[in-house]
């Protein structure tokens, strides 16, 4: 099974991905997490250090693909999760999308795709070009990390559009949304009213998750010494279980950007005016 995790920049994709990977491993699956971001810090909480990227390795071997072995690019992370980082050029140079596409191709050539029960692509902020959409060509499910905010849902809608596009030709489904740092979920609900899709889990704002990121550890690793954190791990285990149940998923019917903009901004600008007018209408009816 292949998963692709997308979402707005800074929403906590990598942290969520790493914890889901460990959760899947806890359920006895062999998991590979692929960081598809030139920042190459996706797997940091799994390995505890920035592992060499695929592009670093290829460059070192002068692009002699035949000299590249799985061990050169795949690193063992916490909980038995294997880790790969695509890497890429600094902003404004080269082509990050090319690197993602190249990484996926190389891993296929190394037969890495067949060795794992679950492969999880953790892709940067938004789908900006064909390269960053490349994981969708291979994925069975897309997961979108969001919060209860306008920007994240707007980005989610863009990703939903990409999923819809890819689903024409690939057996790709949207597994659902994961609410991160989400105390209230009213805006998320409003969005899924318009664009129906499952919500896999909603995590509240938990300080320990932020701390785990800085420490370079997953919640599962931290919970080893601090059992009080087990409840956080349960969120991720819940997500893992849902995915392992092979959910039906959806091909989302994306809303045009402008409509969504109106929908979401209306929520902020005219809060709860609707019920009031209904009431006054009722009053008139009474008279």
């Amino acid at each position, binding site marked *: 099974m292949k998963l692709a995790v997308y979402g707005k920049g800074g929403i906590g994709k990598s942290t969520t991905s790493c914890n889901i990977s460990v959760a899947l491993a806890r359920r006895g699956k062999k998991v590979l997490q692929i960081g598809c971001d030139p920042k190459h810090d996706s797997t940091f909480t799994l390995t505890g250090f920035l592992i060499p990227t695929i592009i670093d390795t290829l460059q070192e071997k002068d692009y002699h693909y035949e000299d590249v072995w799985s061990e050169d690019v795949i690193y063992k992370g916490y909980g038995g999760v294997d880790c790969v980082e695509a890497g890429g050029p600094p902003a404004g*140079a*080269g082509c990050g999308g090319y*690197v993602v596409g190249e990484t996926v191709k190389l891993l296929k050539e190394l037969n890495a795709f067949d060795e794992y029960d679950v492969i999880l692509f953790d892709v940067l902020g938004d789908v900006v070009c064909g390269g960053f959409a490349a994981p969708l060509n291979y994925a069975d499910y897309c997961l979108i990390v969001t919060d209860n905010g306008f920007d994240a849902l707007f980005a989610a809608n863009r990703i939903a559009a990409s999923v819809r596009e890819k689903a024409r030709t690939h057996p790709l489904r949207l597994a659902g949304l994961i609410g991160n740092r989400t105390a209230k979920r009213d805006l998320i609900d409003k969005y899924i009213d318009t664009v129906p899709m499952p919500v896999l889990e909603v995590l509240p704002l938990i300080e320990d998750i932020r701390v785990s990121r800085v420490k370079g550890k997953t919640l599962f690793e931290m919970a080893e010494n601090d059992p009080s954190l087990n409840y956080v791990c349960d969120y991720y285990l819940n997500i893992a279980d849902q995915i392992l149940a092979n959910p039906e998923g959806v091909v989302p019917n994306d809303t045009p950007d402008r409509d969504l903009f109106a929908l979401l901004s209306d929520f902020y600008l005219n809060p709860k005016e609707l019920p009031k007018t209904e009431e006054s209408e009722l009053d008139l009816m009474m008279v």
Partner: protein
Amino acid sequence: MKLAYWMYAGPAHIGTLRIASSFKNVHAIMHAPLGDDYFNVMRSMLERERNYTPVTASVVDRNVLARGSQEKVVDNIVRKDREEHPDLIVLTPTCTSSILQEDLKNFCDRAQIDSKGDVMLADVNHYRYNELQAADRSLHQIVQFYLEKARKKGELPEGKTEKPSVNIIGMTTLGFHNNHDCTELKRLMADLGIEVNTVIPEDASVNDLKLMPRAWFNLVPYREIGVMTADYLEREFAMPCVDITPMGIVDTARCIRKIQAVINAQGATVDYEPFIDEQTRFVSQAAWFSRSIDCQNLTGKKAVVFGDNTHAAALTKILSREMGIHVLLAGTYCKYDAEWFTNEVSDYCDRVLISEDNAEIADAIAQLEPAAIFGTQMERHIGKRLNIPCGVIAAPIHIQNFPLGYKPFMGYEGSNQLVDLIYNSFTLGMEDHLLEIFGGHDTKEGITKTMSAESNLGWSRDGLAELNKIPGFVRGKVKRNTEKFARDRNIAEITAEVLYAAKEAVGV
């Protein structure tokens, strides 16, 4: 179904490279993946020059994609500067590499520090402009760069030349008969007593660009390349511009009269009327020839014209005004400059077509069935399939447009050449009848050739034989009507029977 993608004008970097490699001692570097660098091949094949085309590629390979260009482009520029000592290095991306949006201007600035010559980034949007627009822009950019540089250094010349003088702007490598036109224009200027101050960009040195303001006026013979440069010179140096294409007897005279007005306004006292009269009546053959008995049978013949703005407009006017030929349709692929073209030709033709789609032009030709086409190499192919003769009058450039003999399109000799081309393009008098008697130019059963690719109609052998018995001048019409008849009734194969039935039904 469209079988092939065809472009009348190339991508933007070709325009920039044409300008750069027209100048003397200017080197161009492409930031381009392998395969985008076919300009060198094209130019060395067509221009047959002794020297290598001064263009190299800084190849965008996987290292560049994975890590960015880093020092590569800068190193390549500095290396070329050291090896070739060019006066100027022009850096350009191609359509492909411009997707990367790398900061090439920064590479140029960095390379400039270590280079003896000048380094410049061609400032062109590759997804907005085509070859011709990019060439116009790049020429303007280079001229402006050197004039501003000279102004800063205080090296701009004072005043004008003693005698009337001209800058001829827009002569480029890979231009359509540009080198012959250039020779002809120089001769014309000599006849008019006008000194040629500079000719740019072909064979010009960038160091001479600062001398441009000394000329009394600028001559821009081609609408496609040079207009922006002339506008700039008019704005900054108050230099008048003559932009009438001297093609055909009438427009050559108009061009000369404009030159006269422009230089007399600056203190000269010339009268070119006797010269124009002499040339028109006694030197050029075009004027008497088009009135001669030979040309009588061209009168009222129908033609379609298609090409770039300059040539299509000029040809339309010559055919209609000077030779009495009926122009059914005049078209251009310069969509970006459609208004100019429409203004130029709308009085001289029935219909104007602005399109970059060769199939649209082919269909129009197939429908109009002109006696001759004057177009590009593409229209020549269309004409071959339809059995309509075609004279090639405009780019896209082809090896056949680099004749060894002297074949200008401009000036009085150009008028002669054009009349020859036009006259010889038509199927003439007796030839018409001979073709009728002997059944066409070739023995192939060319009658099934059609322009619409969707057509799945077939002609059976007896149907074809019957069709071939029909006189040539109505055969096309009969064929079209029969095919329409068959299509309407879902008949896949047209036999003699179908032909007769169609004849009964339509009365053809």
